[in-house]
């Protein structure tokens, strides 16, 4: 097994591991007497400025020098003509130092033509201290197994409860910061509801929570929410971004394809709290279980979620290669947080992933028993029909019916046979062919039942055909040979490669002669794999705190960002595995922490000092995702259709968007909105055309689902303001809510309180109430003086006794509330 820097690791053992474990995290200027930490201070500089020419990539390597290894002829410690690039403890003898500080542009490192910026003063100082202090190399933090650390006690007893608080608290003390007090209960409930089920609490739920004054009320609320079906729907959404789940192929014709049973399986897995290691195994290798269940097969569709072209224009060999690369890329990002795809053309420039390693992984994923391109609009085998529960019931019913009919027919036929006269002898038959037909007439009943049977069979066939199908993985019997693609070109074949995992990670345990995807899946979920649990825990953390402990949740390699709290990520990861990869338990621990429950109010200076709240000295505050914004509006207006699962739905969108980008012969050329209740489902059920996803979603940073996205951008744009002001469904929701609130509540004050509470979980204070009442009156006045506008707002509404100008005014008031920052933000 090859471990970069392994010799040093072995030499210094546990003691040096402790150094990086207690390292302070992301870049904070070093205090004068503070020790240099290799992983925190030096490795990022080596990686960014030096590895490109002096790193893992042999082809790019200059001067036979590499900083990613500490032994061998190319290591910086190797004696070259009486000197070495680095002589530990001796600055003067280390040529590295000389090359860093020289003014001569021909000698200075990094050289000007490398396009890498030279080291600044502080960075040079770090190198100086590091060399003087012995130039110790430690392995990259995420490539070695997590180490447990004992959190120290916190002076504030409230912050002494769990590991999260003790470790975050210790860090805050170190930074001389104090945490914020707990958020008020209304804020907390809204935060919790949005984070756990993706929907705000209703006024009734708020009431229930506020009235529960017994100890443990918050805990009980957490458990109530975790038990709701919306939890799985909400958790699934993040996963679907990560695996680039969509309803179209994404290339060329961008035809429709069906994989929705996979989406439903993800929802169920979170709701049933399927062990996360199983969740991973089913997806990588569900098809390779001896007798795979439907769920396992559906999950294996993970391997089919890549972009895929339809037959006819591309070269099938090239398409095949692209599919496999996409599959391997997803595998690396989703499970390992590694950018393995960087090694498809050459050795990885920063991480110890060779091109051979990439094709070693490729060899696990290129043995699919499927055509590389889709047969036009038709389903792309292998696929599996997955009837909905209703359809299953219907199928059972029809099958029973068929079997009953068959029995009846058998009995009738028996009867008929017995009743029939003895067959004529052969001679008579030959002489008198007409006599052969002289069997007794088929009884009418038999005829009827046979017809019934035929109809029943047709019905069964129709139900089966209507059942959703999903793409699944299937292994070819004979293992395909894998060769390196020189420079990543699909037909430039190089050296033959066997299935293998990168050497810097623990070795693969294979069950048979040739390792298969199941072995690979188990290698991923082996507790000894240093990446899997960390990557998963980090992404879940990111959901609840806005930013991951490792901000670059898609990249845990050398160029990724170091964790803000290494110790916390390690402890959580270790316990996650020990808990049996229990996701709900992990989520529960996070939201029960004091860290999570802090108020997100702070001074502007505190916001400026830590804009992303990496130190967690306050509660996190961030804009809701596109789906949550829409679901909230539908829920609050009483319109949300809570139906789960099934085919994707098409809520209305502006005209001609699909046409404006599609090929005429695409099956997703013309968009036709669904009608009725379907358009008010939760947004995770919305149809996702990769070339043109719903604009209400993408304008709020939902990805196109063309590549694996581990974290979304959160922007704030004028186009978003336009959506919240004018979007058809959102405006209709405002009208609906206006009518409901006017019917149910008598006076403006109560109505305003109710509306404000529904959208923000807060009651307006006197000042806010005054502003809202005044705004309402201004709007009433506008609509009273302009009957045309009033009638345009209320056209088609069932107003009953309600005055039109008031309904219109309330509609606009609600429209204002949709545009409040606190409404679209989780505080």
């Amino acid at each position: 097994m090859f471990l970069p820097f392994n010799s040093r690791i072995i030499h210094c053992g546990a003691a040096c591991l402790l150094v990086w474990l207690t390292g302070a995290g992301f870049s904070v200027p070093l205090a004068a007497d503070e020790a240099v930490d290799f992983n925190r201070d030096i490795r990022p500089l080596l990686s960014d400025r030096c590895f490109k020419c002096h790193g893992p990539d042999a082809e790019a390597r200059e001067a036979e020098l590499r900083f990613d290894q500490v032994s061998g002829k190319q290591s910086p410690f190797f004696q070259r003509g009486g000197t070495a690039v680095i002589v530990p403890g001796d600055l003067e003898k280390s040529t590295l130092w000389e090359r860093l500080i020289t003014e001569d542009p021909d000698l200075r490192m990094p050289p000007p033509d490398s396009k890498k910026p030279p080291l600044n003063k502080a960075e040079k100082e770090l190198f100086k201290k590091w060399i003087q202090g012995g130039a110790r190399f430690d392995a990259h933090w995420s490539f070695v197994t997590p180490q447990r650390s004992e959190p120290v006690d916190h002076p504030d007893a409230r912050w002494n409860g769990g590991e999260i608080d003790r470790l975050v608290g210790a860090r805050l003390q170190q930074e001389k910061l104090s945490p914020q007090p707990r958020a008020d209960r209304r804020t907390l409930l809204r935060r919790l509801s949005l984070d756990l089920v993706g929907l705000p609490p209703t006024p009734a739920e708020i009431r229930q929570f506020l009235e529960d004054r017994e100890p443990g009320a918050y805990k009980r609320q957490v458990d109530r929410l975790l038990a709701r079906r919306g939890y799985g729907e909400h958790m699934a959404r993040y996963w679907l971004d990560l695996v680039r789940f969509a309803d179209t192929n994404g290339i060329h014709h961008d035809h429709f394809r069906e994989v929705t049973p996979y989406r439903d399986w993800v929802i169920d897995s979170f709701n049933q709290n399927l062990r996360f290691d199983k969740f991973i195994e089913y997806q990588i290798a569900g098809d390779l279980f001896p007798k795979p269940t439907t769920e396992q097969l559906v999950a294996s569709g993970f391997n089919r979620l890549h972009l895929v072209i339809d037959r006819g224009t591309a070269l099938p060999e090239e398409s095949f290669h692209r599919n496999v690369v996409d599959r391997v890329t997803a595998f690396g990002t989703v499970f390992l947080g590694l950018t393995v795809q960087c090694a498809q053309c050459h050795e990885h420039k920063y991480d110890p992933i060779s091109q051979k390693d990439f094709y070693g992984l490729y060899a696990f994923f290129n043995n699919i028993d499927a055509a590389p391109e889709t047969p036009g609009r038709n389903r792309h085998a292998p696929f599996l029909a997955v009837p909905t529960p209703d359809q299953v019931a219907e199928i059972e019913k029809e099958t029973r019916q068929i079997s009953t009919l068959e029995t009846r027919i058998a009995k009738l036929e028996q009867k008929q046979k017995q009743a029939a006269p003895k067959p004529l002898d052969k001679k008579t038959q030959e002489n008198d062919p007409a006599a052969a037909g002289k069997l007794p007439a088929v009884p009418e009943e038999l005829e009827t039942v046979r017809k019934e049977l035929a109809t029943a069979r047709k019905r069964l066939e129709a139900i089966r055909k209507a059942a959703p199908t999903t793409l699944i993985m299937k292994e070819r019997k004979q293992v395909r040979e894998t060769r390196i693609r020189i420079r990543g070109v699909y037909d430039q074949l190089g050296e033959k490669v066997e299935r293998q995992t990168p050497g810097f990670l623990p070795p693969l345990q294979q069950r048979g002669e040739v390792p298969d995807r199941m072995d690979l899946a188990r290698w991923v979920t082996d507790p000894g794999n240093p990446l899997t649990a960390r990557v998963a825990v980090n992404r879940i953390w990111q959901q609840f705190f806005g930013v991951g402990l490792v901000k670059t949740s898609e990249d845990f390699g050398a160029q990724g960002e170091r964790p803000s709290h290494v110790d916390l990520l390690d402890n959580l990861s270790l316990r996650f595995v020990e808990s049996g990869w229990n996701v709900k338990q992990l989520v529960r621990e996070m939201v029960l922490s004091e860290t999570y429950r802090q108020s997100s109010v702070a001074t502007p200076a505190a916001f400026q000092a830590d804009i992303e709240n990496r130190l967690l000295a306050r509660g996190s505050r961030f804009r809701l995702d596109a789906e949550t914004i829409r679901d909230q509006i539908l829920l609050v207006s009483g319109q949300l259709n809570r139906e789960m699962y099934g085919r994707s739905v098409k809520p209305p969108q502006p005209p001609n968007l699909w046409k404006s980008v599609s090929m005429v012969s695409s099956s997703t050329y013309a968009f036709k909105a669904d009608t009725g209740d379907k358009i008010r489902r939760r947004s995770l059920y919305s149809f996702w055309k990769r070339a043109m996803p719903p604009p209400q979603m993408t304008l709020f940073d939902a990805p196109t689902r063309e590549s694996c996205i581990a974290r979304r951008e959160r922007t704030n744009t004028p186009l978003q303001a336009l959506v919240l002001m004018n979007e058809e469904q959102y405006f209709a929701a405002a009208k609906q809510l206006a009518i409901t609130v006017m019917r149910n509540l008598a006076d403006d004050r109560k109505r305003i309180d109710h509306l404000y509470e529904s959208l923000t979980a807060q009651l307006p204070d006197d000042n806010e109430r005054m502003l809202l009442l005044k705004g309402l009156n201004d709007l009433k006045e506008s609509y009273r003086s302009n009957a045309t506008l009033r009638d345009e707002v209320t056209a088609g509404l069932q107003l009953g006794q309600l005055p039109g100008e008031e309904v219109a005014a309330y509609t606009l008031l609600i429209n204002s509330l949709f545009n409040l920052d606190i409404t679209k933000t989780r505080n």
Partner: protein
Amino acid sequence: MNQPFFETLANRRLFLNRAGMGLGAAVLGNLAANHAAASPAANGLVKRDELPHFAPRAKRVIFLFMAGAPSQLDLFDYKPGLAEKFKQQLPAEVSGGQRVTAMTRGRTQLVQPTKFKFSQQGQNGIWMSELLPHLSTVVDEICQIRSMHTDAINHDPGKTLVCTGSEIPGKPSLGAWLSYGLGSMNRNLPDFIVLNSAVWSGDKRNVQALYKRLWGTGFLPSRHQGVMLQSSGDPVLFLSNPKGVDRKTRSRMLDLATRLNQKHAAEIGDPEIQTTIAQQEMAFRMQASVPELTDLGRESKKTLELYGPEVTRTGTFARNCLLARRMVERDVRYIQVYHRGWDHHANLPPKMKGQCYDIDQPAAALIKDLKQRDLLKDTLVVFGGEFGRTVYCQGNPTREDYGRDHHPRCFTAWMAGGGIRGGMVHGQTDPYSYNIVDKDGRITTRFEDDAVHVRDLNATILHQLGIDHNRMTFPFQGLDQRMTGVKEAHVVKKILA
């Protein structure tokens, strides 16, 4: 005194006059401060400090993208010798193991000359096809690059490469890079606008798809994405107020939202709330500025005539060219106009005629119009598709009717204005327009021999805007990502004025 301030904002002068009075004014004061300090990056007005790297020659770019890949052989790259080679087998030393698409793989490759006449135009006698009579009148403004080449042989990766610098989806588009790097020049319109021609005369059945990623932001913050103007409905999605909401009601509604947002900003302390307020203000201004932009009512009859008869129909290329000029006047940084329907595998001549009818007069008009308004000098116009077409015929060749397959080895693009030398041709191809060749006729793909890769074209566009393509980077997935990708790219200095 209680003038709703959004209403006030609708009139800038009024806004200035009233600043300093009442609550609205207090809010406005904060707004102005916000633009300057509180969360400046969030509103996208801010450029990278280090940019531009040097004095730009162009302030804005109009990219006329001919999606589907027009045939260079029938438009620009005149090969008179082909007429007598009709139906002859393409010599092996010319095709030399070229990768072809699944559509023509394994078929014999028979030479197909163009059926269209060419003539020499402009001061330097540059050959142009009879299909482009109007562009022929502006050849002296244009630099033809006949030695373009690309890596892709299929539309989707080809277009993605041109627009984002990579065949693999997920990289930011050029317009997004510019928005990110150079910031915005105006406060009423987006930095990057995409115009898609909704109608075209060429191939209607086999029209290639476009993808949002072509104007997407990849790993850059999504506020830099291109805003596609729609040819039907709202020009900017969700721009219009719903029925029953007029500008005054909208201003009242926003005024209420702003007063509350302002209060919350003071209580919570998060500067992001100020950004929300600023963006609502921008949205309100766009509700006025975008309709003004797309209203051609004030264009003179002469101007409309310049762009040709189709300019009055919404969604035409002609109308989009005129809109592009209006955007340039309003300092939109990057405008990309898509025209589809160029994928002529069969029946190329009639389809080509239709396509050229769509684009020839408007593209020429755009150049003339920019020039007469003195905007051409700092506006770069680029014209091209994702690759070229083959010299050999697809389908059964006749002199009059034929088709051509995809061809990545050479194609023609042109540039005008923005510091580009007009009246010139850069690069050359062999007598079959199959390979780029050097001055001695040897096959080449070297930049030194005037071959211009798509990367080089993009590097040149960036250069004209004052950007060194090597130095404008963004860290993602461990790399300093650049628009031109990891491979070396060059600025085509020979074509600069």
